[in-house]
């Protein structure tokens, strides 16, 4: 290689690299990235144990009012009883007994209170004390059948939903939460009830919950269909 060829080659590779700056990358990389995501999911599901716990010290400081509020609708979704009737949580799909629970029904079930981290996909974390019913408790009450491999959590926040693998859904730290820091969950955090678990990234934790659907196949999700990884486990 002579000097001129070297300089030309060098300059064109630098130009190519600069062209990549601030870009989404080539379209053709998509299938490779999806392949990597599938393989990563396999590894993450292999790493997952139901005995894993997110532990936060009992005296740890809570984020309180600094805990970010978030929804996808234009305005904060608030359940309008006059329009939609009493809020109910429907539990259905691959179950023996379908459930339709009012907030009172939910609060009468065995409750769990846990101080845990919240891992956002953006990189921040926040701490709160959540009160609610374990998903495993709800699954037991509904009599989940053997073909239920996935769970979809649907909301009244536009078309927001996220589906999970059943193992993560039945993890002891996965709650259907109605309490936040020893008070009732506010509309900024997904009232009347939401999914909360420290084992999944924030966007997997559907707020403004209306339906829990046990399914033999997965059904994507609001952010999962928009490019974020479906598994989203931490």
């Amino acid at each position, binding site marked *: 290689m002579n000097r001129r060829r070297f300089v030309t080659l060098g300059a064109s590779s630098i130009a190519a690299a600069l062209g990549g700056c601030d870009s989404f*990358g080539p379209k053709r990389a998509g299938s490779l990235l999806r392949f990597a995501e599938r393989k990563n999911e396999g590894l993450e599901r292999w790493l997952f144990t139901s005995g894993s716990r997110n*532990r936060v010290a009992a005296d740890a400081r809570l984020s309180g009012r600094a805990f970010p509020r978030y929804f996808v609708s234009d305005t904060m979704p608030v359940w309008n009883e006059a329009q939609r009737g009493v809020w109910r949580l429907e539990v259905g799909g691959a179950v023996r007994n379908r459930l339709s629970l009012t907030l009172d029904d939910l609060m009468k079930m065995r409750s769990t209170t846990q101080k845990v981290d919240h891992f956002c996909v953006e990189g921040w974390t926040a*701490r709160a004390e959540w009160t609610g019913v374990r998903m495993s408790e709800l699954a037991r009450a509904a009599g989940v059948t053997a073909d239920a491999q996935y769970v979809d959590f649907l909301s009244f926040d536009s078309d927001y939903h996220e589906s999970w693998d059943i193992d993560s859904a039945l993890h002891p730290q996965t709650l259907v939460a109605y309490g936040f820091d020893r008070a009732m969950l506010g509309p900024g955090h997904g009232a009347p009830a939401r999914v909360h678990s420290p084992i999944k990234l924030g966007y997997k934790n559907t707020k403004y919950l209306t339906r829990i659907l046990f399914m033999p196949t997965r059904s994507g999700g609001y952010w999962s269909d928009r490019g974020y990884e479906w598994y989203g486990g931490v």
Partner: protein
Amino acid sequence: MTTTSGQSLGGAKGDVGFTAGVPGASEREPPAAAARARRPRHHWVVRVTHWVNFVALGLMVTTGLRIFNAFPAFARKGESFCCYPFAGKPIPNVLTFGGWLAGARNYHFAAMWLLFVNGLVYVTFIYLHGEWRDLVPRRGDVRDSWEMVKFYLFARPEHPHQGKHNALQKSAYFAMPIFGALAVVTGIAIWKPVQLAPLTNLLGGYVWARYWHFLVMLCLVVLTVVHVIMVFAVDPYSIRSMITGGYNEAKSPEARNARPFFWRRPMRAAPRSDGGIDT
């Protein structure tokens, strides 16, 4: 004396290398000068992993900075963080890749395998093939590094005598895979802070692990930038050696008494008997 234990080209049948430096090994080798002349300065595995690493590291850093920009700070919500003065200031987007958070994450979690597997191949190869001898720290490296600093600062007229690399280079190339391994470990800790909680806790929890991951990235970037500057400023002839393997010892920094941006013109007719090769 060369410390490289390259495979003896045309050696006896069953000779699988690892022979240099072993007493009696020279009997089975062709004349030393001829063997050296045909042996590339960097084995092809080293050359390939070097450039794959360049791509992998470039992808990891640029997509990582894009991910960082989604929350360019370290404090947990409602708390403060002691040690990052630029909280809230995003990295300029021209230094990032992936287009948006999800795109950058998808690239990051794919390219991590390229970085990891390539690093593993490189480290395994230099361990088995002997190149580690040119990089491993030895007693006297501190003294030799100090001599190099004095030379670069014109406090010493002649280039210190060196092996394949000078003492400063050696420590940089030795540090690189270590920082690479630290980047992998701190990265795993913030990828799986619950399933691998013991690892994350070992690093001081999620917030600190994320900070270590960022600092390790900075160290890798600084090492890389200094390396590239020094290649062009001190030994541009070594670029060829990392592509084709060819290197003319008569143009080595020691032969040219090369300081950054300041060296003697190499002799036109370089003596060929000392192992210099053109490819």
